[in-house]
């Protein structure tokens, strides 16, 4: 699980072009949206693509994203339980 969290932080920084943020800056329970990393709605769509492309998880209901993408912790838990690759 720790390796997956590290992997997710790296993916998010690279894919979402978070130029001024390092892996160490993201705590596992930091909110990804709002006051946390400050991600926006397009970033949310990119996170859905990451789930599909890298972990074989297709989000049928985008509303699910709200709970899945709360933090690195919640993302990692969901991926661990549902990944197909």
């Amino acid at each position: 699980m720790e390796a997956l969290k590290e992997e997710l932080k790296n993916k998010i920084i690279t894919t979402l072009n978070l130029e001024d943020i390092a892996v160490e800056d993201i705590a596992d329970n930091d909110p990804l949206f709002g006051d946390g990393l400050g991600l926006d709605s397009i970033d949310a769509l990119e996170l859905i693509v990451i789930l599909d492309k890298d972990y074989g998880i297709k989000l049928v209901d985008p509303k699910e994203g709200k709970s899945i993408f709360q933090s690195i912790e919640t993302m990692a838990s969901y991926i661990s339980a549902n990944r197909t690759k």
Partner: protein
Amino acid sequence: MTQNKPNIQSYIKIENNEIVLNGTSAFKTEPTDFADFAKQAYRNFEMQYPKFFKMDALSKLAFLGSELLLSPITSTEDENNIALVLANKSSSLDTDVKYQESISDKENYFPSPAVFVYTLPNICLGEISIRHQLKSENSFFIFDAFNGEFLSNYSNILLNTNKADLVLCGWTEFFNDNYKAFLCIISAAENENYKNENINTLYHK
């Protein structure tokens, strides 16, 4: 079309790894690609706007130019009625091609929303408007080549009909890492510094 001489207040040119502001070199790097040049320029001018790194190249080019012209004259308290009139030759083709490549393989079909949103040239106008909180007129035109006469006349019409207090107009061209931006601020009032200049003469200087 008859040229209606614009009153240029300030201008900027970005090409060949250099930013020239009002005729003076403001920033220059060793030869490098645009992505690196743009990042260095952003850091050099301490722009403090992380969304810059999410933009495509055309928007970064327009953003860099507009930032140096608009930041000294925009207010965070009052509404800034500054119209935006930009043009180029390649539209958003550079990003269009990248997006098309990302969806051409049916076995590896993962279209990127973050790339897709930049597959229109006028998105760069939105980026500038968001940055400076502009709710003003804006237009993006596609021409075969730089058309200073059109930009002058269009800007003057906006000023003469009180659609805008100022106009940021110019050329922002980007394709395959070849780029050139020329932007200027036009007003109703004459500026002594540029009374013998027009958009064409400054563009070709």
